[in-house]
């Protein structure tokens, strides 16, 4: 379902050219749970950005459901992000001025989809956030904020969840809960790609890929 062929990513840091990805070839099947590990600066986040259509590769081809996306126009990439991909970030990135409900509904607003109130409330309750619907992010714990962020990633019904260090800002108990949540999504046939520093959690994915210096060694 996702295929990367010779993906390279080069960018400039001042006048210095940085080769973040140096030829990535991989295939990810529908419904797979993949974890990507590697030291800092190995290109994990760059890879996730390319996978999430937030960034275009400098070279190579990215196929999602057989369609090459690397040369798509900006508005086409926006449509793919809206329809197929849900993002979860380490820093949660919730909008401080919006309630839990509005934060979760935000992607629907961007994709001009009618807001199904019952469905969102159902999802909120399922994620153990009952009673938090009208709360603001600052009133939530880290674990709760990440659950809200996951609910937001799911609201458009994506096929792929891209999680960038989703447990990086959480204690071990909350990390475990979030990981279990991602696992349960995967059981519901979502493709989950998680970048992490936590080797224990990474090892529990279907497949763990080690990224080093912008490539998968071996």
């Amino acid at each position, binding site marked *: 379902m996702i295929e990367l062929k010779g993906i390279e990513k080069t960018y400039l840091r001042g006048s210095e050219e940085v080769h973040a990805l140096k030829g990535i070839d991989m295939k990810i099947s529908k419904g797979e749970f993949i974890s990507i590990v590697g030291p800092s600066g190995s290109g994990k986040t760059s890879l996730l950005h390319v996978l999430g259509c*937030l960034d275009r590769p400098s070279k190579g081809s990215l196929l999602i459901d057989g369609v090459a996306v690397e040369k798509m126009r900006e508005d086409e990439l926006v449509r793919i992000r809206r329809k197929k991909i849900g993002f979860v970030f380490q820093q949660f990135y919730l909008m401080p001025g919006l309630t839990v409900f509005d934060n979760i509904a935000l992607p629907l607003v961007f994709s001009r989809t009618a807001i199904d109130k019952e469905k969102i409330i159902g999802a909120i309750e399922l994620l153990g956030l009952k009673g938090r619907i009208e709360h603001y992010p600052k009133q939530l714990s880290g674990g709760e904020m990440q659950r809200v962020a996951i609910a937001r990633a799911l609201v458009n019904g994506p096929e792929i969840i891209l999680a960038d260090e989703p447990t990086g800002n959480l204690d071990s108990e909350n990390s475990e809960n979030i990981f279990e949540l991602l696992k349960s999504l995967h059981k519901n046939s979502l493709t989950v790609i998680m970048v992490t520093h936590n080797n224990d959690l990474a090892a529990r994915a279907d497949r763990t890929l080690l990224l080093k210096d912008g490539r998968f060694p071996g």
Partner: protein
Amino acid sequence: MVFLKLAITNLRRHGTRSLLTALGIATSVAVLFSILSFNKGFSKGLARELQRTGIHFMVVPSGCPHEVASLVLHGSVIPKFLNTSVMEKIVSMKDVDFATPILVTQLPNAEKARVDLVYGMEMSRLSAVKPYWEVDGKIPSAVNELMAGSEIASHNNIRKGDLLTYSGVSFKVSGILKKTGSQDDAFIYMPVEALQAILKKPSGATAIGVKVKTPETLAKTTDELAEIVPGIQVVTMNQVMSSISNLAASGKVLSLSIAIITILVSAVGVMNSMLMAVFERTQEIGMMRAIGASRADIFRIILKEAAILTLFGGLSGIAFAVAGSDIIEKFVRKAMPYIPSGSMVDFDPVLAAASLVFVSAVGIISGLYPSWKAAKISPIEAIKG
């Protein structure tokens, strides 16, 4: 709706900054709205005053028409006199209804150690020349009676029944002119013959006010008059009013320019405030792009914030201007040489709407650049922090 909520909550997150920016806009809108209202009130007041006046034209010694305008409405003292024998010629014209002499001068008031502006007129013609005047007491009916304008009366504690002495002649205050809101409030009014006697110019007049029987004959009458009597100048009330309008026009242009500059300065404030907000929210904007916001969505959110900020500022500005209209009016009355009677700064919804539309347009234009900047933010750069 969520976009709107987002815009409002974003503005509230930086409450002080938003408030200060809005205050800048409010001040400039208040200035603009007040100036527009005043200009409109001024023109309306002039027209009203013109309609009210019972005379159609003034006959004055040849000179500057602005001087005449100033005489009629401001009461300046022109050191030239007409001889009232001119009046006989005027009255003999068939289309003339009546002619009445007006004598304006400054007289020292020895007891109070001040100089008063004194207006001599035929008291019997008062209702024709100043039909809108209301008097507390009675209009002077004898040569030793006079009447005081409300302002001069209240400043100098002049009451009905008091005695005032000018050049050794005592006058009884028969009445006080009720507040007109114009310069009329600052004068002492006495029978013209009494003033002529004091000035030792038994047939002198600063001007002669003339009313024609039908306004249609006005042009013909003034043309004829200029031929019959040499050395005079005929100034119609319309000319007087247009002289005043011309005098006021440059002031209007200047004041409007100041208002517009104030608005432009506050627009720069909006731009600065929005740019800071965009800069501070780079990561948030990146996140929104990641979860499906297009560049246009981001553009709209930021532009909405700028629009709300200016609209809020604009509405507050109108409210300030309305609330402070009395103070503004008082200030302008002091500063301007001539202001027609009546309220100058009335609330006009059309002007309020025009001011709001103008400031909103300026606000939105100043929000364009920050919105464009925000829309250009790359989601990756933003999320990387």
